[in-house]
């Protein structure tokens, strides 16, 4: 590449050539450095998936209990608390759905099913985050106002972590050679 500089017609052309060569060289260097993938041992993936989806699953269970305590049926036509609990139940479904999908992959060695589930979980997590931001903007409530520690905790546990878990879910299958499913099948 360098040798061609001496054959360029003008200084401007030589400068453009040199910049292009620099970009090409950096790109090749970066490509050669990328060796990893998102696959990790199932023994590590399981706590990761629990961390990502368990808090939201607990929130879902809470919402279900709250709905039961209010004596209302899930629906968007009831009183304020019933409406809120129903909305929370719907939004928090990402938690148990993600957790079940992750356990299916890690413990049973089955692929993610259906294939659009990770994208749906990711979308649900983002919607959760937007809902939290909306609640904080409207007037605080259970998750605190903007800038509050509770708000950021809520955002992390109920939106960011499930989103990360959903994004990593497709990479968990097929499981690594030291997966739980392969160990359990070899013991039988």
């Amino acid at each position, binding site marked *: 590449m*360098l*040798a*061609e500089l001496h054959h360029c017609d003008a200084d401007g052309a030589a400068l453009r*050539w*040199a910049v*292009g060569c620099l970009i*090409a060289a950096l790109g090749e260097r970066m490509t050669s450095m990328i060796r990893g993938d998102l696959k990790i041992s199932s023994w590590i993936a399981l706590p990761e998936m629990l961390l990502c989806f368990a808090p939201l699953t607990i929130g879902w269970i809470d919402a279900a209990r709250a709905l039961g305590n209010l004596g209302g049926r899930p629906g968007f036509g009831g009183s304020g608390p019933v409406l809120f609990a129903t909305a929370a139940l719907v939004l928090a479904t990402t938690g148990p759905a993600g957790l079940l999908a992750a356990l299916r992959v890690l413990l049973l060695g089955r692929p993610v099913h259906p294939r659009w589930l990770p994208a749906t979980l990711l979308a649900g997590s983002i919607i959760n985050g937007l809902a939290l931001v909306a609640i904080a903007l409207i007037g605080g409530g259970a998750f605190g106002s903007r800038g509050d520690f509770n708000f950021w905790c809520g955002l992390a546990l109920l939106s960011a972590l499930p989103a990360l878990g959903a994004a990593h879910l497709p990479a968990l299958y097929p499981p690594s050679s030291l997966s739980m499913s392969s160990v359990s099948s070899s013991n039988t």
Partner: protein
Amino acid sequence: MDRSRKASPQTVSLLAALTQSPRSWRHGYELSLETGLKSGTLYPTLIRLGDRGLLESRWEPSVEPGRPPRHMYRLTPAGLLFAKQQLADTTARHRLRAVRASA
């Protein structure tokens, strides 16, 4: 089994330039002037073709003292076959588009 992939327009234009005189060694700057590809696009394409065994290269010592040697490129026999296939596919696609546009 190799998966045949449609080459990018930049790769096709490079292949077209290299097939003009398939047994001649070509310099990078010369190819850049002929195809209009900038060095940032040309060299990654040349590297990819070389990695796939479609291109061979060699160093040419400079005739002027003190100047670095230049890298030269030409298609391998497999590369020539690949180039002809890609150029034929490209021509067929253009004809099909022209027919559809006129219909």
